[in-house]
């Protein structure tokens, strides 16, 4: 156990985490160069395209250190986005140390800070690494100072590296061996294994990645998951090289995988503890949480007939995405669909994209919203994750919405405009810390609903990319919220209802009604487009009736052509959604998602 080192790499997005991992794998001979695709650890297409690690992975390296001893280094990768904070925390919990990678030209960013806090909470030994020192824009000295301020470490502890140029690997590997403590715990104690990741394999079922804290896990052991108390037989255990390497047993300190004939990935929950069914540990490891979605949205098939296909696709997706939740729902406008819960906006986009790319689903999504607590006058508390389920105005005593604590790191010149944006987004200013004379970390509290929409894009654009952002949920607070309905010829379009702060309702109502006027084609009858709070109309516009649509000629040679054209147009109409007597093109639902506040 003394020769084992379990570590993670934490970094802000694009600071070179994956390239650094590649360098370590290559230089320890864990993979041949031929095997190195750039960014080896990111193996989902989407991840590579977006340059982010969505799911965490792990890989083992052997390293013969300067002291002549061969060490086993387990690199546990972490997802690099705020949507996956809990998963990051579980990956970190499986380690004793972490490389904190900071880009030499970008410096400390919001994610650097928030991930660092997670690592410190997990009591990890931090090894600061400044990456990309070869870049002409590198400011090694000032980044060093930022890190010293942040960690209170000594300058000599900071390693300078360029993963791309393969500079600094030796120092990093030696530091891991010397500074990261070996695992503690005992193989003689009852089994406690932390699941830090799990995914679904269509041949083997759920595969859990585990870190053994105590005890020994052997094949044919009868095991038990604490979270659901289910028992399984360990079919196969082993370590994680480039591929799975079967070792038949794992001992305290080890990192490896477990296959136990688990059919459902929801049984192998990240953060859960595995023990033996008999004579197992009395207590699970600390820190397990049931993952709860933060953002909800309705997903509907473009064609009503594809409802079952969409259900199948979601079921399959759920197999390897344990944080995706969905329940069937019905919308008067969009028909049968699903209310889906996501960890955050990125997660939502990923799910949508995977449904479209991997499962060929054409979907219409509704405006994302958070989960509200509605307290009724009769004392009842209703949890609302769909605006359509909002109780009547008269029944509501108060509404609470989730708040987050946000960390925004930026150059000082952008502070003014960021503060303005924060005010627009109902932000509550808390604190400013200067990381160095030119960079500041702002602390704010925001309603989560203001953040999920377009906050991040706006932040990036007003700071010309020089702002980073991270957040964590801090609880529910009362707000002056109302439900805003959109009506076409007096009929509610349930899929367009939103819950919004009172001060923003008018503006939103005006924007949506004028957008709809643009997108809903003129029809046989005039269409009144209204935005209303309860029965009070706050914005209104009309779509004039269409006055002419008839082909002038229809003689012998035209009949067939005309019929086929009508059939085609009818198909187009079929794809439209109907509310009352008004046909709404699907683009209208999608366009509402693009409206800027």
């Amino acid at each position: 156990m003394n020769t084992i080192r379990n570590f993670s790499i934490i970094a802000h997005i694009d600071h070179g985490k994956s390239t650094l991992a590649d360098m370590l794998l290559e230089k320890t001979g864990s993979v041949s160069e031929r095997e190195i695709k750039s960014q080896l650890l990111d193996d989902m297409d989407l991840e590579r395209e977006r340059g982010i690690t969505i799911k965490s992975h792990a890989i083992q390296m052997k390293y013969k250190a300067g002291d002549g001893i061969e060490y086993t280094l387990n690199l546990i990768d972490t997802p690099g986005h705020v949507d996956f904070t809990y998963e990051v925390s579980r990956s970190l919990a499986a380690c004793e140390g972490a490389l904190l990678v900071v880009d030499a030209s970008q410096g400390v960013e919001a994610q650097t800070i928030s991930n660092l806090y997670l690592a410190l909470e997990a009591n990890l030994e931090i090894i600061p690494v400044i990456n990309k020192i070869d870049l002409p824009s590198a400011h090694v000295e000032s980044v060093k100072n930022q890190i010293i301020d942040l960690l209170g470490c000594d300058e000599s502890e900071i390693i300078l590296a360029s993963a791309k140029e393969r500079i600094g690997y030796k120092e990093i590997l030696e530091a891991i061996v010397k500074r990261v403590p070996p695992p503690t715990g005992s193989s003689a104690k009852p089994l406690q294994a932390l699941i830090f990741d799990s995914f679904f394999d269509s041949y083997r079922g759920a595969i859990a990645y585990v870190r053994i804290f105590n005890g020994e896990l052997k094949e044919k052991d009868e095991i038990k998951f604490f979270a659901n108390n289910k028992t399984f037989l360990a079919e196969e255990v082993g370590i994680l090289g480039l591929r799975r390497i079967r070792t038949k047993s794992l001992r305290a300190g080890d990192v490896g995988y477990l296959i136990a004939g688990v059919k459902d990935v929801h049984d192998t929950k990240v953060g859960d503890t595995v023990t033996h069914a008999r004579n197992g540990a009395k207590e699970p490891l600390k820190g397990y949480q049931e993952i709860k979605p933060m953002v909800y949205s309705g997903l509907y098939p473009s064609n009503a007939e594809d409802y079952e296909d969409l259900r199948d696709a979601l079921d399959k997706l759920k197999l390897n995405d344990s944080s995706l939740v969905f329940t069937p729902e019905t919308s008067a406008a969009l028909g049968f669909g699903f209310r889906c819960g996501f960890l955050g906006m990125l997660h939502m986009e990923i799910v949508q994209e995977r449904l479209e790319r991997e499962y060929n689903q054409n979907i219409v999504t509704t405006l994302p919203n958070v989960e509200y607590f509605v307290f009724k006058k009769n004392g009842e508390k209703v949890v609302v994750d769909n605006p359509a389920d909002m109780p009547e105005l008269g029944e509501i005593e108060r509404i609470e919405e989730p708040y987050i604590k946000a960390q925004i790191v930026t150059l000082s010149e952008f502070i003014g405009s960021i503060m303005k944006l924060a005010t627009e987004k109902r932000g509550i200013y808390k604190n400013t810390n200067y990381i160095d004379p030119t960079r500041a970390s702002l602390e704010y509290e925001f309603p989560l609903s203001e953040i999920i929409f377009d906050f991040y894009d706006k932040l990036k654009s007003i700071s010309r990319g020089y702002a980073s952002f991270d957040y964590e949920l801090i609880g529910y607070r009362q707000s002056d919220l109302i439900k805003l309905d959109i009506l076409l010829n007096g009929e509610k379009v349930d899929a367009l209802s939103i819950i919004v702060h009172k001060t923003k309702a008018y503006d939103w109502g005006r924007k949506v009604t004028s957008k709809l006027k643009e997108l809903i084609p003129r029809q046989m009858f005039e269409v009144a487009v209204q935005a209303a709070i309860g029965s009070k109309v706050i914005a209104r516009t009309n779509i004039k009736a269409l006055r002419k649509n008839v082909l002038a000629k229809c003689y012998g040679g035209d009949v067939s052509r005309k019929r086929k054209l009508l059939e085609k147009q009818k198909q187009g109409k079929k794809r439209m959604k109907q509310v009352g007597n008004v046909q709404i093109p699907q683009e209208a639902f999608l366009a509402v998602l693009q409206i800027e506040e």
Partner: protein
Amino acid sequence: MRELAVYIHIPFCDHKCIYCDFYSVTTLRNKTRFFEALKKEIDFYARKLANSYSVSTIFFGGGTPSLMEPHLIGEIIEYLNKKFNFNSPLEITLETNPGTVNPNKLKAFKKAGINRLSVGVQSFDDDDLKFLTRIHDSRTAVRTVKKAADAGFENLSVDLIFNLPNQTIKKWQKNLEIATALPVKHISAYSLIVESGTALKALINKGKVQIASTDYDAKLYLQTIEYLTNKGFAQYEVSNFAKKGFECRHNLFYWRYKDYLGLGPSAHSFIEGKRWLNYSNLTKYVEELSSNFNAIKSSETLTEKEMLEEFVMLSLRSEGLDLNLLSGKFGEDWKANNKGLLKKLEENNFARVEKNKIKLTPKGYALCDEILLNFKF
């Protein structure tokens, strides 16, 4: 014997107008071979149909049929008469372009058997005619109609096009006034159709020509219906107006969903629920007829549903949808499925229901395609 309408496509033009997408060639090189082939085609269909069908109408369309020598047209009528029984009265229409005929030629056509002329005036405004690249001017157009009447043609029709670029309400009104002052019994007034593949379409795509909005088009259209109706020309189809008894019997065959036989390149036929079309190429047409006896490019047998769709479409576009006739042909389902919409159409003055017949109002004709899209079949 069942009635048959015969359409004959004469694929020759002096030149191609920018808006036209009908098949034609601008050389007369293959004229003789065309007429020989046409006779072969008549032979082919006579063998198949002459026992059960007799001819009620003949329509020479094109192309520019009036470009042909009258005796050539006469020979075709005679040839048809030899092979098929003719009904009485028999309507024989010739599409005639101003500038291609003189009094003598008109008389010769009359003598050859033509008893109805459809004159392709398009506009009585010289700027419009230039835009449309027609070969005639407005004076020639007026004179042609008058000379036709002088030659003894009572059943006279003119074609007009509206919603042309820069066409004011006033200018169009003038067109209608000139047309109704002439000795014509029938007027076809078309809103300009921009067909794909035409020179006009290319001009629009390049931004060189702009077409007015559909609202303006609607305005001109309703103006047309109101004016012509007041002048005694009843609307009996989206774009067609006639004095009582002068509706084009040939076109009514199309709209009443009756059988018609199309001869010549690009012609369409519809007989007993089967539709086919000829090659749209003169050389190919001539070749096919010398080897295969017909020039059919493709054919389709309509399903019951397709026939229902076409029947409803054509009826609504023309004299109205006879619900008794519909039930007899296709059963009661359609009526039941569309009850709500039919009621709404009536309430909003898009249609009137009289004696179990749904007839569109002017406002309804203007939205005919939109209405059709809303029916359930």
